[in-house]
């Protein structure tokens, strides 16, 4: 276990280093000049060059990358070009909201997806199965902007059950988390359904049924433990996805998450923030996958960590 963890963490560091190298290179390939975005439209060529020099952007790319990695090793993500604020501070200030929305979204995804998938699997081929699959398809394909606005209009504007926007209470969390949960729930229900159908075909399920166990207990006690395995792996991926932000939903509900920060930074070509957010998201994907792998043997004793 210890050796496994060390090996995985070392691999994670290499992956993150690779991510910084790729993002850094890409930021130099964009046919636009961040210095001109900072300098604004009234800048003289001299001002532009002087800002380029101040930011060290007139040095060779490899030199800039080396100094970025050196500072990164000391935990310094640099300062925003536009805001001049430390990137660490900007990301840190949005981390609680991002994590909370992630937790809420994963809760709704599972709460919607797992029961729907199980039910559809047990009613396979019947009308209710088809109905659930159509709904899940709709959930996956409906634009989040529309779903979010619809929920907001009905439950916040019309009924006034929830605040219209903002962050701070459980009431603020429910609608944005539900919006994300509807889309994710669609995916999870499809995955749960096929995984459950697969498991229900197994011999041990037939045995359980032959023993005369109630169908409910066959499905929920015997089959579910195996059928849910692919889902735990998917949660790991979801963590990474949500860490890079849920831009659309954050914007509809005024949720101060990382997605908004990233979106604004991309528009302003604020490369230190783009680098920082990419790195945090990549780290979250790596950690999320690691967690999923660590949890797997707890759920399924057949899985061994090597």
């Amino acid at each position: 276990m210890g050796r496994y963890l060390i090996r995985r963490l070392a691999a994670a560091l290499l992956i993150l280093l690779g991510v910084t190298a790729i993002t850094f290179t890409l930021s130099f390939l964009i046919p636009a000049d961040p210095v001109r975005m900072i300098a604004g439209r009234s800048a003289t060529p001299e001002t532009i060059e002087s800002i380029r020099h101040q930011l060290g952007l007139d040095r060779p790319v490899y030199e800039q990358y080396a100094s970025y990695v050196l500072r990164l090793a000391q935990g310094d993500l640099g300062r925003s070009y536009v805001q001049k604020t430390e990137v660490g501070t900007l990301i840190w200030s949005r981390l609680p909201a991002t994590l909370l929305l992630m937790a809420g979204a994963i809760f709704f995804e599972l709460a919607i997806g797992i029961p729907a998938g199980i039910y559809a699997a047990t009613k396979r081929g019947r009308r209710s199965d088809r109905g659930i699959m159509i709904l899940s398809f709709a959930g996956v394909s409906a634009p989040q902007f529309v779903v979010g606005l619809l929920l907001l209009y009905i439950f916040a504007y019309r009924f006034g059950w929830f605040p219209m926007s903002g962050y701070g209470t459980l009431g603020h969390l429910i609608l944005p988390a539900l919006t994300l949960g509807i889309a994710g729930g669609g995916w999870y229900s499809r995955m749960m359904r096929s995984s459950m159908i697969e498991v229900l075909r197994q011999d041990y399920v037939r045995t359980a049924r032959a023993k005369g166990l109630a169908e409910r207990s066959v499905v929920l006690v015997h089959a579910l433990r195996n059928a849910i395995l692919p889902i735990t792996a998917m949660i790991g991926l979801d963590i990474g996805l949500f860490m890079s932000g849920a831009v659309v939903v954050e914007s509809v509900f005024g949720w101060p998450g990382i997605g908004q920060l990233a979106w604004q930074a991309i528009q302003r070509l604020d490369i230190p923030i783009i680098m920082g957010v990419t790195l945090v998201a990549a780290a979250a994907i790596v950690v999320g996958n690691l967690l999923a792998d660590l949890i797997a043997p707890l759920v399924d004793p057949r899985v061994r960590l090597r």
Partner: protein
Amino acid sequence: MRKLLIAATAALLLAAPGLAFAQAKQGGEIVITYKDDVSTLDPAIGYDWQNWSMIKSLFSGLMDYAPGTTELVPDLAESYQISEDGLTYTFNLRDGVKFHNGRALTSGDIKYSIARTVNPETQSPGQGFFASIAGFDAMASGEAAELSGIATPDDDTVVFTLSAPNATFLHILAINFSFAVPKEAVDEHGADFATHPVGTGAFKLAEWTLGQRLVFERNPDYHHAGLPYLDKITFEVGQEPTVALLRLQRGEVDVLGDGIPPAQFEEVMNDPANEGLIVEGGQLHTGYVTMNGNVAPFDNVLVRRAVNMAINKDRVVRIINNRAVPANQPLPPLMPGYDDAYEGYAFDPEGAKALLAEAGFPDGFDTQLFVMNTDPNPRIAQAIQQDLAAVGIRAELQSLAQSTVIAAGGEPDQAPMIWSGGMAWIADFPDPSNFYGPILGCGGAVQGGWNWAWYCNEEIDARAAEADAMVGDTVAAARLDLWRSIFIAIMHDAPWAPVFNEQRFTMHSPRIGGEDALFVDPVHIPVNYNHVYATELQ
């Protein structure tokens, strides 16, 4: 009529300086929403339309504009004198001005603040505005640590020495980049001064929760007695404009910082419930198509004129729900120097075809039209593309990110045509010279510049320099006449096809009031925060 109004306002101002509108009772608070987080509140750095007006409420400069107008009035200055040769400006500071930290303002603060903007280490986008101050080059290049053209003979007097006369210099002292900041606060916070602003403005920053909200509180020591009226302004950021509109209708929000969302515009305008809550006004903005003179066939003036005649501006205006008025010259109608009598190129596709044939392109030609990729700009560009196709010009659309279009425009031969929407040009200050130098003058036709037509007419450049050297009230009218003739001469060369001037539509809740002009203030967008008041307290 407009001139009459301006004259009347000016007369009012002379009668009661700094008191353009009736006094209102103080108190109350408002909520304003924005989609984007505020990038910075440092007056040397902030240069977008969102923080521009916020900074004006936190800081002040030697000069300002009478609320709701483009008329210059002294602010931190009590009075000023301009020398006969136009090279020396002497300002006497107003008594009793205090920074938010309690310290009294001195002339040294004015010198420090402007020198800070010029200092290359500050990385200010406004550095170039101060180029006419003596010693600018030495400081901007990092050779000198002081700006030699600013002297402070005593605590209440600032003397500027210019290297050449500059008729816009008083405007330069009214833009945010010149606003007074206290050195001790800048030293204490360093780069984080952006989020810890300390100024002499009507409001002070009470709270800034990144990504969520900013709260401004009334500055009780503000140097204009009785102002501002509001106790508190909360800016909620990260708000989708559509949701912000719903919240305004529910009474949770008072002003839509990003304006009325285009998709709801018609509905909102036609709703009788909104009567009296939407104020329409002009803007110092022109939207135009640039034609790059370095790229054939736009080196031919006949082709450029044909493009001017090919575009159906009324249709383009309809595409954006009539939120603009068709333009026929570079200057917007609100800008001093605008020529009411000029009729421009009429929409005339047949005439355009004839001109193209005369230029040697009877079958038209292929070209590219660059456009920023956010709505409504691609739709506008498509309309222009259709108009051009009708006269035989086959323009391929290049719909790209803002920064990419700006970069292409700054290269001598990359972008044959650019639709300026979303990028250029809104004036930095209400003077016609600001619509010339960077975007139509030879100085802007450089790599990385904003003169995307790469238009450089040295004869016109000389006349522009002559106009900007005409300093003082006695020659002000002659100077505007000169500028008027310059822009009409430019239209003869037709480096641009001016398309429209955007109108502003500010929607506010019934909870805030004030003269309509405050809600479409030409220099405060969306609203002049310092002068609006809470209606329930009046």
